[in-house]
């Protein structure tokens, strides 16, 4: 009795500390980087230039994430990076004469010139009528910039980007390359004829853009424009391409001439091999004959044939030209696939410099796809040193030199679609050591108490031997400050549970496990041809058993692949006898079930096929038995995701062939015009909720509506395409639906709300426990849908009883207001309770989705001054700590808003005594941007698209990872670190005080005894 009241008192104190805690929880300047880490990434290169303008080499990249960056070859860090908007697709990056020009856009088209050394924008030209084209090309005439996009060719002034002339070609070809030769401008394009493309050449006058000639050279059928290579020999400019059976060349300006490459160079069945150059000047020519490669400068000069043979898909050629030096590198894998071989050819002397080996594991990063060569000029005739900037199939980038990999940047993380925390195992837990927790009753009965005692005693003896060492370590850690280098090789959980693994799976097929303390890679693997989209932990870490994760992806045949991995090592997991790799036909949804199979103690995975068949993984008899027991309570909902207009609910039943399949149970078709914009995810049953209700100021309780099947979602209904259109209207609808019955518990309309633009998603939903938070862009009253006047609510007969009832009901006054005439982000907080009346609950021991009892929903809305790109929430072990809604901001921050500020019960106007007692903040319509709440402090973390949190062993602390372009990992303490002593706490003073007290007590005890004896002798 006493213990329980003590516990209750302790909990009350804890809650008071949590609630009274300040709403802001910034970190001190000296803590920056101590408990967090940041991986600043650039993305997988689409365009790259490895140049040596003076003496220092530089690497410029333009990436799939629309980032332009200058990398330092020494360290791999970027000197500068420019992050374009997510919808501003980078179509072209050009580096000519140290002038960096980019072409980007989606719907619009921007040409920008950048200062190559500082990354500063020099000018930006937006095209008035942008052509709809995915490709673009840039060339230079003097200081001016030539731009080709689709069928439009423009000349822009080099100093400010204003157009000099613009011409539009009516040949029907799409142009994507510019060649300047002998004062003439050649624009190369491809004209689509059925499935093939025909090379098309346009010759222009540089002065006024007049089209001088337009023609298609004979035999000009190519797969795409990328297959066309431009080379110069003997003062002539040539185009080379691989036709269906032969390779051809065409001298620019001579419309009727095309020669077969076999005849020109005397090599039978030759094909053109791509050579990556350091800039966009004329390419070198490498011809392939089977698996043999020959480099040649022209038809009449010397040629060099490389000795080693390799598959064309595995061979990568690159060239380097600077200050008279000319080198060619030939990169291919060794037969063991554990290293690569590099042939370095001095192209001026036509002499092989040497063949080098570099350790390179294809299992980890896949084959090299692009390579860019840099050669440092050698003095005194020594072998020149070279470096190769390589882009591998997994998306990572590396700098290679003879014998070693200088650095690697894990850019595949920018394409990660899923991540999962993996708890590390404890060093030892007595009960787990002996499997006592998982013993079957009959097994427990078979072990005698003596045997159990002896087992435990043995373990204690072993632990006692290691105790002195552990004690020394603990004392040391108290006295010395925390280690700055947090790199540890052992994979065990730490005392506070902040050390975990976070596994990222990307659509490039790369899987990387990072240590959450240091951010360093623990293991990584590459799966060729699999696009990963989901990760599930099917077995948590136990002392004796490793944690197991399942990676879900799609292979090239559009089949769904499930891979079982030991989460600590990254190796295939097949200890339970199940196959580590399972392939299924196209699957719509993969769901982890709250059911374990007995053999391997892994949770089951259910896969819903396109034909509504249910597949179970692992495909063992034990798993089937476990699913058979679970099937009657298995309810599934399926949706096509964002953009779809319906959700379908299903139950399971056994089909004719004794296999489970889905049976439709409900269907939710949104009203006309509404499309799904964002989906929350229901909190799983049994997730940590500290309290079942909210205690109000008058000590009454509002009980939370904790329905594990409640799904919050938002739809958008728009007319017109762009907010600038005159007929543009938009509205966001919030739904709370039960996924078992399809019941719509709540539906509200936010008129004028929507996405900022069709290409910029701005509607986000996050839900937890009994609340949900929605954010959207308010376009203002002018974008509101025309309203139908709603019927007035039914008039009640006012009696004494109803007056009393009204008084007692919790203030849920109408929060709806007119559409704010202020464009910007609005955040809506919703909370669901069992009843609108305090102290009233559903009278039942069980909860059912079929019961006609709807939640009471309270909502309040706020405007927020920043654009949002992602939303998440913190998670703690017991759910006592106030939650925090985490926002990825467009300006490159991870930001936290305390749930206390997003409380829909915040009183409007002066708070009453009860509301003050409840410690509610008075309502303010705006949520101010508080720099102290920026979790990523002064770091720039752009393009956050995912936020994932995990609980630690400290109730106050939630581990948070945000990624999109960069990866940022940090800790959040929404109620401050109430369960952790501060870093500045004086442990020595505490120990000294305790020691002084003990000594004092001993001394005074002795004095007292002596006095007592003396008194007795009197």
């Amino acid at each position, binding site marked *: 009795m006493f213990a329980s009241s003590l516990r209750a008192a302790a909990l009350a104190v804890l809650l008071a500390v949590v609630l009274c805690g300040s709403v802001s929880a910034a970190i001190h300047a000296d803590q920056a980087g101590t408990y967090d880490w940041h991986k600043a990434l650039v993305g997988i290169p689409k365009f790259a230039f490895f140049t040596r303008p003076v003496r220092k080499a530089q690497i410029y990249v333009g990436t799939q994430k629309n980032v332009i960056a200058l990398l330092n070859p020494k360290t791999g860090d970027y000197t500068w990076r420019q992050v374009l908007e997510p919808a501003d697709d980078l179509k072209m990056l050009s580096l000519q004469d140290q002038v960096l020009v980019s072409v980007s856009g989606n719907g619009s088209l921007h040409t920008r010139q950048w200062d190559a050394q500082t990354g500063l924008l020099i000018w930006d030209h937006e095209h008035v009528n942008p052509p709809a084209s995915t490709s673009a090309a840039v060339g230079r005439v003097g200081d001016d910039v030539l731009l080709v996009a689709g069928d439009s060719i423009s000349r822009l002034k080099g100093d400010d980007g204003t157009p000099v002339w613009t011409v539009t070609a009516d040949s029907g070809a799409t142009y994507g390359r510019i060649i300047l030769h002998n004062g003439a401008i050649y624009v190369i394009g491809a004209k689509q004829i059925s499935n093939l493309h025909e090379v098309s050449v346009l010759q222009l006058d540089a002065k006024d853009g007049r089209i001088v000639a337009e023609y298609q050279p004979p035999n000009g059928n190519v797969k795409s424009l990328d297959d066309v290579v431009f080379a110069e020999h003997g003062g002539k400019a040539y185009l080379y391409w691989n036709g269906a059976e032969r390779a051809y060349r065409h001298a620019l300006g001579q419309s009727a001439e095309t020669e077969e490459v076999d005849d020109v160079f005397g090599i039978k069945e030759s094909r053109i091999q791509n050579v990556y150059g350091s800039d966009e000047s004329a390419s070198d020519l490498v011809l392939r004959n089977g698996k043999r490669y020959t480099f040649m400068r022209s038809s009449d000069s010397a040629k060099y044939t490389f000795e080693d043979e390799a598959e064309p898909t595995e061979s990568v050629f690159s060239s380097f030209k600077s200050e008279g030096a000319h080198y060619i590198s030939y990169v291919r894998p060794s037969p063991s696939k554990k290293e690569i071989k590099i042939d370095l050819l001095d192209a001026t002397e036509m002499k092989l410099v040497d063949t080098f080996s570099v350790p390179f594991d294809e299992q980890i990063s896949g084959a090299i796809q692009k390579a860019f060569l840099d050669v440092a000029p050698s003095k005194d005739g020594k072998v020149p040193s070279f470096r190769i900037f390589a882009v591998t199939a997994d998306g990572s980038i590396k700098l290679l030199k003879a014998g070693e990999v200088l650095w690697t940047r894990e850019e595949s993380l920018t394409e990660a679609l899923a991540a999962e925390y993996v708890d590390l195992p404890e060093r030892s837990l007595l009960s787990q050591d002996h499997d006592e927790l998982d013993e079957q009753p009959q097994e427990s009965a078979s072990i005698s108490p003596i045997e159990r005692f002896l087992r435990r005693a043995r373990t204690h003896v072993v632990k006692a031997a290691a105790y002195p060492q552990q004690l020394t370590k603990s004392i040391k850690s108290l006295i010395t400050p925390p280690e700055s280098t947090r790199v540890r090789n052992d994979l065990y959980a730490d005392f506070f549970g902040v050390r975990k693994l976070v596994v990222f799976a990307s659509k490039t097929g790369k899987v990387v496990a990072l240590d959450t303390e240091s951010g360093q890679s623990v293991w990584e693997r590459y799966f060729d041809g699999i696009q990963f989209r989901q990760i599930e932990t099917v077995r948590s870490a136990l002392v004796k058993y490793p944690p197991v994760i399942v990676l879900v992806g799609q292979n090239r045949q559009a089949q769904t692949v499930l891979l079982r991995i030991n989460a600590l090592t990254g190796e295939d997991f097949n200890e339970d006898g199940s196959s580590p790799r399972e392939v299924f036909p196209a699957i719509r949804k993969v769901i982890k079930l709250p059911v374990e199979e007995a053999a391997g103690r892994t949770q089951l995975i259910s896969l819903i096929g396109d034909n509504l068949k249910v597949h179970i993984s692992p495909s063992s008899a034990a798993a089937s038995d476990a699913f058979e027991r679970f099937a009657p309570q298995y309810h599934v909902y399926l949706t096509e995701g964002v953009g779809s207009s319906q959700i379908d609910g299903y139950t399971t039943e056994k089909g004719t062939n004794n296999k489970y399949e889905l049976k439709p*149970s409900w269907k939710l078709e949104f009203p006309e015009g509404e499309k799904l914009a964002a989906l929350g995810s229901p909190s799983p049953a049994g997730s940590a909720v500290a309290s079942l209700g909210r205690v109000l100021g008058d000590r009454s309780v509002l009980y939370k509506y904790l329905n594990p099947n409640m799904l919050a979602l938002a739809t958008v209904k728009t007319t017109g395409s762009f907010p600038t259109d005159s007929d543009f209207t938009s509205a*966001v609808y919030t739904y709370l639906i039960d996924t078992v019955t*399809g019941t719509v518990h709540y539906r509200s309309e936010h*008129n004028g*709300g929507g996405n900022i633009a069709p290409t910029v998603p701005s509607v986000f939903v996050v839900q937890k426990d009994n609340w949900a938070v929605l954010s959207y862009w308010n376009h203002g009253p002018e974008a509101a849908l025309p309203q139908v006047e709603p019927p007035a609510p039914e008039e009640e007969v006012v009696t004494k009883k109803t007056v009393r009832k009204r008084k007692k009901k919790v203030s849920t006054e109408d929060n709806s207001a007119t559409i704010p005439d202020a464009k910007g982000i609005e955040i809506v907080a919703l909370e669901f309770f069992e009843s609108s009346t305090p102290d009233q609950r559903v009278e039942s021991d069980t909860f059912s989705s079929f019961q006609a009892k709807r939640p009471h929903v309270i909502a309040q809305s706020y*405007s927020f001054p920043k654009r949002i790109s992602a939303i998440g929430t913190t998670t703690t072990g017991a759910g006592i700590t106030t939650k925090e809604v985490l926002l990825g901001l467009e300006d490159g921050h991870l930001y936290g808003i305390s749930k206390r500020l997003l409380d*829909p019960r915040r009183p409007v106007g002066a708070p009453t005594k009860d509301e003050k007692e409840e410690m509610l903040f008075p309502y303010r319509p705006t949520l101010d941007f508080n720099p102290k709440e920026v979790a990523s402090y002064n770091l720039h973390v752009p393009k956050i698209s995912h936020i994932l949190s995990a609980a630690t062993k400290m109730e106050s602390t939630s581990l948070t990872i945000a990624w999109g372009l960069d990866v940022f990992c940090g800790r959040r303490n929404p109620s401050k670190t109430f369960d952790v002593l501060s870093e500045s706490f004086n442990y020595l003073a505490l120990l000294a005080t305790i020691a002084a007290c003990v000594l004092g007590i001993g001394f005074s005890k002795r004095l007292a005894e002596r006095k007592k004896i003396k008194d007795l002798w009197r």
Partner: protein
Amino acid sequence: MQLPSILISAVLLACGFAASVAEPIELSVSHSLGSAKPTPRGSLIYDPASPKRSANKYIPGAAAAGAVDSGDDDGLYRVYVEGNGVRLTAAVPLCMLTASGYQEQMTLHLDSKGVPWHLDYLVSATSCDIPKKKQLPRTPKTQVFTETALAGARPKLEQIVVTTPDGKPPAEQTFLQKYWFYIIPVMVMFLMNSGAEEPAKK
């Protein structure tokens, strides 16, 4: 030439008026068990224009109970609401309907035009077990509700409104007009102190 357009306007106006004074709408209700074919059960009347709850009701048909009584307890009892080009359906386990004593609730969700787009069908039981002590209601009871989208919560932004008696914005004041009461005392103090003579040097 003007006559047809006047006629069209008149027809449209008449339609609009008809819509505004819309009569209650009747939809047929049928039901089925498991995968059986639905059989007629009754009709549902709702009035999208009326705020009164009593305007919505269920009227049982003649052969309503048969399909339910003959069913398998594990099956899903499904209700269909049809009419005016709309067919909506929802289901509950039959055992729960039985446990509730046939106390059911049908909710029609209406779109902005008052057309039903979704049906909720719920019962008053929380499990299939019938408590021994509990007396089940003797007569089945069907409640019918209609729901439309609520106006979502919006930030109550206070707009700055400049009001003058004539409704025009006040004229911009000059620097002196705004701060004369600061400037004058400072100048007076400055003038008063400036007259003092420098003390003679010793």
